[in-house]
C-alpha cells in the first residue's frame, strides 16, 4: 500500500499532470466554441521551443512563458482563420498545423542555436513553498511544494470552470459550440467568439509547451512533447469537456504513468512484470477508462462544423 501512496510518487504525479491539464484546458476552451483543434501536439511543440529560447536569451522564465503563450495563440489563430473564415475542414487543417508545428519548432531551434557539441540549458523552475499549507503533513508536501506553473494549473482549472459555466461570456461561448445559428440569432458574433476562444486556448497550449523545458529538462529536445498533446486531446473527451473532470483524468493518467516507473525500479515487481507491460500500463488504463467514460459522452454539437450564417442547416 505504501508504494501506491508514496509521497514522492504523488509529488511527481502533480509535476507531470500540470502540462497535461494546462493543454487540456486550452483545448476545452477551443472545442467549447465549436472548433476542433487536432494540431495541439504541434502547437505545444512550438510553445516548448519558444519558451525555451526566450528564457535562454532573456534569463527570465516569465518572458519565456509569455512568448510561448503568444506563439501558441498565433498558431491556433492560423487554424482559426482556415476553420472560421475559410470554412476549411478542421481535421485537415488541424493535421496540417500539427505537422507545421513539429517542423517549425526544430528549425527555429537550429537557426537560433546551431549545431553544437553541448546544448544550452536554462535553470528549471524551483519549488515554491506555500506558507502554512506546505507544512501540513502529507498533503503539504504533495500539493504545496511545487513550482509556480503547477499552482497556475490549479488556478486555471478553477478559472476556466468559472468562466465557462458561471459567466455570460462562457454561456455565449458554449452557445457557439452547441448551436451557432441560435447564438447568431440572439446577436452573438459567432466568428468573433470562435476567434477569441482560439486565441485564448492557444495561450494555454503555448504555456503547456513551455512547461516541459522550463520544469522537466531545462533544455529543448526534438522529441520533448512526445505525444502529450494527443493525451491532452484525449483528456478533453475523458473529462466530457468539463475542466474539473479533465483535471481528475489528468491526475489519474499522470499517477498511473508515474506508478509504472516506480514499480519498474522495485526489483520484486520488475522480476514478475516485463518492462513492456509496465510501459503499456498508462495507455491500457486510459483506453479502459475512455471506453467507460465515452459511453454517452457528447461533445459540443457544432464541434468541427464550419458555420456559415448565409446558408440553411
Amino acid at each position, binding site marked *: 500500500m505504501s508504494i501506491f501512496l508514496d509521497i514522492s510518487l504523488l509529488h511527481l504525479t502533480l509535476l507531470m499532470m500540470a502540462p497535461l491539464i494546462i493543454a487540456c484546458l486550452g483545448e476545452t476552451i477551443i472545442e467549447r466554441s465549436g472548433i476542433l483543434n487536432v494540431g495541439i501536439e504541434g502547437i505545444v511543440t512550438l510553445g516548448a521551443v519558444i519558451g525555451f529560447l526566450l528564457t535562454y536569451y532573456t534569463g527570465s522564465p516569465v518572458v519565456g512563458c509569455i512568448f510561448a503563450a503568444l506563439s501558441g495563440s498565433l498558431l491556433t489563430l492560423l487554424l482559426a482563420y482556415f476553420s472560421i473564415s475559410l470554412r476549411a475542414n478542421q481535421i485537415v487543417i488541424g493535421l496540417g498545423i500539427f505537422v507545421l508545428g513539429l517542423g517549425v519548432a526544430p528549425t527555429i531551434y537550429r537557426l537560433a542555436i546551431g549545431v553544437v*557539441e553541448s546544448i544550452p540549458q536554462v535553470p528549471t523552475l524551483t519549488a515554491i513553498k506555500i506558507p502554512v499549507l506546505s507544512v501540513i503533513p502529507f498533503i503539504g508536501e504533495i500539493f504545496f511544494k511545487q513550482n509556480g506553473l503547477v499552482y497556475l494549473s490549479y488556478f486555471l482549472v478553477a478559472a476556466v470552470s468559472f468562466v465557462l459555466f458561471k459567466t455570460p461570456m462562457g454561456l455565449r461561448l458554449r452557445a457557439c459550440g452547441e448551436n451557432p445559428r441560435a447564438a447568431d440569432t440572439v446577436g452573438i458574433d459567432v466568428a468573433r467568439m470562435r476567434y477569441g476562444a482560439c486565441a485564448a486556448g492557444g495561450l494555454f497550449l503555448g504555456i503547456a509547451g513551455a512547461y*516541459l523545458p522550463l520544469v*522537466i*529538462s531545462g533544455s529543448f529536445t526534438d*522529441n520533448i512533447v*512526445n505525444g502529450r498533446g494527443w493525451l491532452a486531446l484525449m483528456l478533453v473527451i475523458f473529462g466530457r469537456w468539463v475542466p474539473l473532470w479533465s483535471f481528475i483524468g489528468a491526475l489519474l493518467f499522470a499517477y498511473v504513468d508515474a506508478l509504472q516507473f516506480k514499480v*519498474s*525500479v*522495485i526489483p520484486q515487481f520488475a522480476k514478475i512484470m516485463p518492462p513492456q507491460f509496465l510501459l503499456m500500463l498508462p495507455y491500457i488504463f486510459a483506453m479502459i477508462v475512455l471506453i467507460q467514460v465515452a459511453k454517452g459522452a457528447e461533445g459540443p454539437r457544432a464541434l468541427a462544423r464550419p458555420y456559415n450564417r448565409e446558408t440553411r442547416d
Partner: protein
Amino acid sequence: MKKTKWTRRFIFAVTILVALCLAVPGAPGRAVAAKAHKFAMILPGPIEDADYNFRGYQVSQDIKKRFSIETSYSERISPADAERVAREYIASGYTIVGFHGGQYIRIVKKLAPKFPEINFIMESSGRGKVPKNVWNVHRKFFEAFYPFGVLAGLATKTNKVGVIAGIQLPDFKSSINSISDALKVTNPKAELVYSFTGNQNDPAKARQTAEAMIANGVDFIINMVNLGVYGVVEAAKKAKHKVLLTTFYTDKTDKAPKNFAGTLYIDFRPPFATAVGGILKGSRTGWVPMRPGNGFELKSLGNVSAEAIAKTKEAFEKVRTGSIKPRLEMKKVRLAK
C-alpha cells in the same frame, strides 16, 4: 639531331604511361581513388542533438577533411525511409553510403547485393556475416560500460545503483549485464536496478524513472538514454541526497558539475575513418571493432575519490588490453548473482 628525336620519344612514352596510370580505375594512390568516391551518411535524428546524431554528423565532416572527398548527410531518416534515401544517394553518384545506427542493418543487407559496385558501412552489435561490399563497425558497448560498474560500485554510499535506458537494444542489455558483473566484483553488497523508459529521447520519462530510483535510495545512476539524460540531470539536481551520474556519447558534465562522475566519450570518427580508408585502398569489406581505445574513451571522471578514479581507469585499461573480458549476453538482462 638523332639524340633530340630519342628524347622526344622518351618524353612521349613517359607521358602516355603516366596518363594510362591515371586513367586506369582503381589505380594505386589515394588522390586518384579519393577523387572517384563520394560519401553519404544516413542519420536517424537531428544533428543539433549534441549526442548520437551529432556524432554521426562529425563522421561526415571528418571524412570530408581527412580524405578530401565530397560528403553529404541526411538527418531524421527512419528505417522506413532509409532505403529510398540510400537509393537517391546512389543514383546521385555516391559510392560509399554509411548508416548510423543498428536499425538500418536489414536495409544494408538488402541493398548491398543489389548495388555491388557501391560500398556500404553499417553499425552493429555483432560480428555477423555481411555482404562482400559492406564494412561492419562493431560497437562493443558492453566492454565500454564495464568500467562504469567499477566506478558505481566504489562511489555508491547507499549501495543502490541504477541504470536508465530507453529502448531494449541488445547493446544496452549486454551493457547492463556487464555493469552488473563489474559491480559484483567491486562491491558485492551493491544492488543494481535498471529500467527501460521506452524512449531514448524523452526527458520527462527519464526524469520520472530517475526520481523513482532516487526515492528508492539509488545514489548512482548510469545513463543509457540519449536526450532523456537532461531529465535525469534535473532529477539528480533536485534530489535530497547526493546523486552521481554518468553519461555517454558527449560530455555533459557542465550541465551538472556536482553530479557527473564520468562520461563514456564515444567517437565514431576513428572506426568510420578506418572503414572509408579501407574502401579507398580497395578493400570492399571489413570489420572494425569499436571498443575501449578505438572510439570509446573515459572522460571527466570526478566527484568521487581518487581511488575510485584510479580503479576505474585501470579497469578501462584492462578491458582495452584484454586482461578483463566482460561477459557478452545480449538477449536478456541477467544480473550477476
